[in-house]
């Protein structure tokens, strides 16, 4: 009576027989993302196949992108971080995806479906993801680093690099105390503030060396350990002995997603492009060219072994057990976090003043 599983699984990749294909497609779509976030070869392949040109617009920060979307600028496909998806969806700025046009969405790893920032995956398709960890100069740090606690170790006073990034840094303080990085509990946040002020004693801000990466101070030994990402590892590990540690309390997962703004002029074309990007062979190219982990499990066998087996990019599952995702804060929670960060920063300035007086 019923078709068996084998029958259903027969066609594997080509999704050209789309039931809702409309005869007329626009000749372009507007893609909005970080600079150099999407390989040109992938865009060219799509244009060659469909005749749709991908117009690539860039933003410097996702806050800027959100502001432009709010102001009614039109984009067809926007790359947006996990914690920013619900900000847009709450304001009805995102279009619901028509999964009839994105059959390759079945290739998405179960780990990235129906997550808290988009509980029914109505508005976002995950693109890339990664971890937040500690880069350690193992030649300069003798002990084996396993925990965020090492950042507070007096042994390394002055040699710990942190970012002027409130959510990540407060999150790390909260996690070192055993709390959620998304905590909005005032008592927990007060406690975290205490931890941050302690951290001030041992750490330096990495922005004073480089705006984007912690690699240079690590390479020249200015810092012995730093909060960082896979990208920093790739930048530094050929020049220095770097170990990338995902602390046992849990890493902070970051993720970028594709969303379609509700005022998109070419939603259908954007969905067509999404389906293209979710083809295993295309996802594999994305991972190889950007050194990001992609969510397309079907692409994994196709990805170059040096990348798919690189635990910095694709960390083993056991390291991910306590992984945390940064979630958007409520208005009250955001005020609390802002307050904690402001007080943390002012205490630094006071110290600087004291130092200069001494």
């Amino acid at each position, binding site marked *: *009576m*019923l*078709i068996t*599983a084998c*029958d*259903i*699984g027969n066609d594997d990749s080509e999704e050209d027989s789309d*039931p809702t294909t409309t005869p007329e497609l626009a000749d372009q779509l507007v893609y909005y993302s970080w600079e150099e976030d999407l390989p040109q070869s992938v865009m060219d392949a799509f244009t060659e196949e469909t005749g749709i040109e991908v117009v690539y617009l860039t933003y410097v920060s996702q806050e800027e992108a959100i502001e432009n979307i709010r102001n009614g600028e039109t984009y067809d496909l926007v790359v947006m971080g996990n914690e920013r998806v619900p900000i847009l969806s709450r304001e009805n700025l995102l279009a619901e995806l*028509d*999964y*009839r046009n994105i*059959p390759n969405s*079945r*290739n998405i*790893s*179960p*780990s*990235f*479906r*129906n*997550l*808290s*920032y988009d*509980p*029914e995956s109505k508005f976002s398709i995950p693109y890339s993801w990664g971890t937040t960890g500690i880069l350690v100069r193992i030649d300069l740090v003798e002990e084996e680093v396993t925990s965020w606690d090492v950042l507070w170790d007096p042994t390394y006073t002055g040699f710990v690099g942190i970012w002027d990034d409130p959510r990540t840094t407060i999150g790390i303080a909260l996690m070192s105390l055993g709390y959620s990085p998304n905590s909005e509990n005032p008592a927990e946040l007060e406690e975290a503030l205490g931890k941050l002020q302690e951290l001030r004693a041992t750490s330096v801000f990495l922005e004073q060396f480089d705006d984007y990466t912690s690699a240079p101070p690590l390479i020249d030994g200015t810092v012995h350990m730093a909060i960082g990402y896979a990208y920093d590892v790739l930048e530094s590990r050929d020049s220095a002995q770097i170990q990338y540690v995902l602390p046992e309390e849990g890493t902070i*997962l970051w993720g970028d997603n594709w969303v379609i703004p509700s005022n998109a002029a070419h939603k259908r074309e954007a969905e067509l492009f999404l389906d293209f990007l979710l083809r295993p062979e295309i996802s594999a190219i994305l991972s190889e060219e950007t050194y990001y982990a992609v969510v397309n*499990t*079907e692409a994994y066998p196709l990805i170059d072994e040096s990348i798919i087996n690189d635990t910095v990019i694709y960390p083993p*599952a056991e390291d*991910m*057990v306590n*992984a*945390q*995702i940064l*979630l958007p804060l409520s208005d009250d929670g955001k005020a609390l976090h802002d307050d904690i960060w402001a007080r943390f920063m002012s205490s630094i300035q006071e110290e600087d003043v004291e130092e200069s007086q001494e």
Partner: protein
Amino acid sequence: MPNRRLQRQLIALLIVVTLVSIVAVGASVFIFVRQTEQEAWQGRQAEAAVNGAQRVEGSITQSTNGLLGLGDIDADLVRLFATFSPDAISNLIERNRGVIELLRVDADGEILISGGKDEPVLANTFTIPQSSWFLSTTDGERYLSDVQLTPDQLPYAIIAFPVNDGGAIAARLDMLFIWEVVASIQFGETGSAYVIDSDGNIIGHSNVDYAIRRENIAGRPELEAILEDTDRRWSGSYENFQGEDVVGSSAPIEGTDWIVVTELTEAEAFQTSQRAIRFLGVGALLFGVAVTVGTARILNTLVFSPVASLQSGADRIAQGDYTHKVPAKREDEIGQVAHAFNNMMTQLQERENQLVKQSQDLAVEVEERKRAEKIANQASAMKSAFLANVSHELRTPLNAIIGYVELLLLGMDGELTDSQRDKLTRVNVSSLRLLGIINDILDLSRIEAGRVDLVDEPFSPRAMLESIHKQMESLATEKNLNFQVQHDEQLPEQLMGDQKRIEQVVVNLLSNAFKFTEQGSVVVSTRVRDYTWQLVVEDTGIGIPAHVRETIFEPFRQAEEGSRRRFGGTGLGLSITRDLILTMGGNIRVDSNGKDGSTFVVTLPLNTPENHQDEPKPDTLAVGDEGV
């Protein structure tokens, strides 16, 4: 060819009325059948939908109930199971057909135990604490996901239950199993069912492709009505995904936000009414033909045939046959009409007979009158001829008498004595008078015999009257009378006519006037009246009494018997005058009150040389009784 318009109109009207009635009755019956049928099907379908919803719900419950025991076991104990009895969970999964994968997590989302029939999916995720299923159960709610597909297109749904220790039990439900349940919901020949979620995605369909393609009811307003209905109970007609016209009903699946939709093709749903309309159509057609033909027959017998025989009756009358009788045996309106028609024909026949008789009588009379007229005319002609001959025969000897008497008076045979001269003079006078009488009679008879030849020449009426005035002035002087001629200024200088005869008329009238006027005046004047001109002779004589005015123009008449002796004259003058005037196309009348004199007015046609050619001979003015 008789005109059958009325018959055609009546038949057409009959057909229209019959058709309208049949259509109305047919439509009512059809609508009634259709409604009854629809209610029945809606009821049965709604029942099927509820039944299907219960079966799906039952199969989910049945599949998962056995798993719930896992939540009653302490977390540490579960960990022990996982270590020492890994088969236990496999057995649990095997016993529940709809479950592919099962896991128990603690309050942190850490997996305590897991197992499955195929590659682990849930157990492999490192985002359990962020997953919707886990976050729902930590809020204490049961969770059921939408339908997910593996890369191999195996459909599953995640179902999760909260556990007392803050953890959860999660399982992957095999949607193929659920679909089997859905597919087993069948009713009628074409009835089928499928399941949609609260977003309208098809999550279970007997045609698996619909679910795998993530088909959605979006853009189908009839079906979207289901989602707008808060209790998810809906029914209506629409075109389904296969493009068939169907009637559908929906029912919610308890414990989920899934909805079962049942469908049945309209062709099947409305089988009875389709059959009814076919039956009704044929029946109505036959009935309509029967009614029309039957009524036409009856109408023909009762109305059109009688009317046709009336018509043919009327036709035969028109051709003159009054003996034909229309059949009038019936007592109804048509019979009455036939009776009336026959009565009319009888009366027409009588009238015709009378007419024929009258016309025969008239013909006889006309014939008689013609003969009488002929005789009279012959007599008159003979009289005139006689008179003319007599006059002629009389004139010859008379002229001889007058001649010889005048010779004697001239003294051809010697001197005459006074006595002889006196006697001869008397003879001469009498002879001359006799000759005048004979001349008058000759004139009159000529005129009456139509032997007067009128000339038509130009003449001057003024000169004519002046000449007459000169001739007759002596008569006025004799009696010391005032004699005048007056002319109308408008009278043309020249007129056409027979001057001699007109002169004769005027002289005659003036002679009479002088004869009967002892004092006063005699005036002759002219007047122009439209297309005529008048000669008026007025005198102040004795006048003419009213009772003789009608007869003075008859021959041998004078106003009074006594007057002839007193005034002399033959009494033929006015008669001749009148006959002349009539012959010239004019007329004469006399006005007199019997004592203040008489006025004779002669009216003649005004013919001038200028208009003479165009004018027909004006004989129409003569309106006088000719007399014999």
